[in-house]
């Protein structure tokens, strides 16, 4: 199993290859957001700081910012979401990934919540 971490903004980040990470939103987040109708992805080569706005996801009713969970450079974007934004709902941690980052500092990843901590965090939201 590739290593997976989570943020309090309900994003997941997964080790893809060394210092390259894939990023998306969690099953809980897509459930809260509802039917996704549009995703705005960052351009390849864009540099983002941890916590900086990197993408936008829109459901029927709400627009939400997606933040970079770690600092780095965008190296891939999931173009499939342009034609099929509903992948974010149907497969949020798989085919519904948003973008990939080459991280500046891998330590930032280790500081994020693991699965157990994130599950406890979601449970605490009631």
């Amino acid at each position, binding site marked *: 199993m590739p290593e997976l971490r989570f943020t309090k903004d*309900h994003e997941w980040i997964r080790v893809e290859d060394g210092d390259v990470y894939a990023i998306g939103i969690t099953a809980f987040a897509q459930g809260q957001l509802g039917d996704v109708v*549009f995703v705005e992805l960052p351009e390849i080569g864009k540099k983002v700081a941890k916590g900086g706005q990197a993408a936008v996801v829109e459901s*029927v*009713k*709400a627009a939400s910012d997606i933040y970079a969970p770690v600092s780095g450079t965008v190296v891939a974007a999931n173009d499939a979401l*342009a034609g099929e934004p509903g992948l974010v709902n149907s497969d949020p941690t798989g085919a519904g990934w948003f973008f990939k980052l080459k991280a500046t500092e891998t330590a930032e990843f280790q500081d994020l919540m693991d699965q157990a901590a994130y599950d406890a965090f979601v449970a605490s*939201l009631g």
Partner: protein
Amino acid sequence: MCWRNRPPQRMRCPVLGRVCVGVHRVAQSESSAQTLQKTPLHALHVALGAKMVEFGGYDMPVQYPAGIMAEHLHTRTQAGLFDVSHMGQVTLHGPDAVAALETLVPGDLAILKEGAIRYSMFTDEAGGILDDLMITQRGTSLFLVVNAGCKLADIAHMQAKIGSRTKVEYHEDRALLALQGPAAASVMARLAPNAVGQKFMTFRTGDIAGIPCFFTRSGYTGEDGYEISVPAARAVDLANALLAEAEVKPIGLGARDSLRLEAGLCLYGHDIDTTTSPIEADLAWSISKRRRAEGGFPGAARIQRELAQGPARRRVGILPDGRAPAREGTEIVDAGGAKIGTVTSGGFGPSINAPISMGYVASAFAAPGTQVGLVVRGKTMPARVAPMPFAPHRYFRG
């Protein structure tokens, strides 16, 4: 992730508001749940698994487990049941009610036969809109349905201005349900013999599933359908009887908003308010020849002037060329980048599978097909002014 579109608190009268299904919003509504009002169907919504949010001072279902998209499409293909009990139901009693109410609204009420309904609006002295409403001629009285967030102000307004001419009765003891969609008529025919043959924008009384009600053939979705007034004590029985029919599913406020946006219908507090006149809002159709000529309602001077000369700006439909929704507050610009207006409602239209918006533009840009720009997150996206409704109305006119 941050849910950006929280309901704007400054809105005086949000009927449907910026419905946000984000966690922040849910947490907010939970913390203030004890101060929110509940409709007679509240426990039923919770039992059906609804996600509840604050709306107009009420704890209301924004969606059920099916979700906004499925609920929207179900209403367009079958029949949806909406709880709109938060809206205000008011009766004006007495022989002078018609003449009295005509001093507050530009609608032609004198022309209404018993059982007929008009859409109109309370205007202020400056020609702005205080609220929009439905008015039914019931013979010896008028029956009004007004928006939830405005209802107490509307009642106070009527009591102050025409309370000496007509008795204003607020029906706090009644619930209001809407049954909307192409299957609504066949469902009603099964449960309510007196609904058969009823035409759009008319009123009838009768039992539905044995429960005494009155109902109008009207709605807020663009579909054929009914709004049903029922004693609060029988509201759950009525809702359960309707939900027992195979075609009927419960629909939340989220789909109500996307349905009315596709139908090109105004949401008070967003598309119309005290800063917009009925003429700017493209509601001139609701003002008859007699009332245009005679005036006699608040703000008549401005409304007559705008009818004669044309308003400076108009409410129009807008179709973005791309896939990104342009939501309320989005700036509308011309080809040179100069601001020509603002989006007042916008989102995604599930039935037309595309983003849709409505908003006000300077009148020179109001013709359908006019190319405009929408400034979304700092980027200007191409769009076109489009005729409304976006989804065709399917009313039953007999």
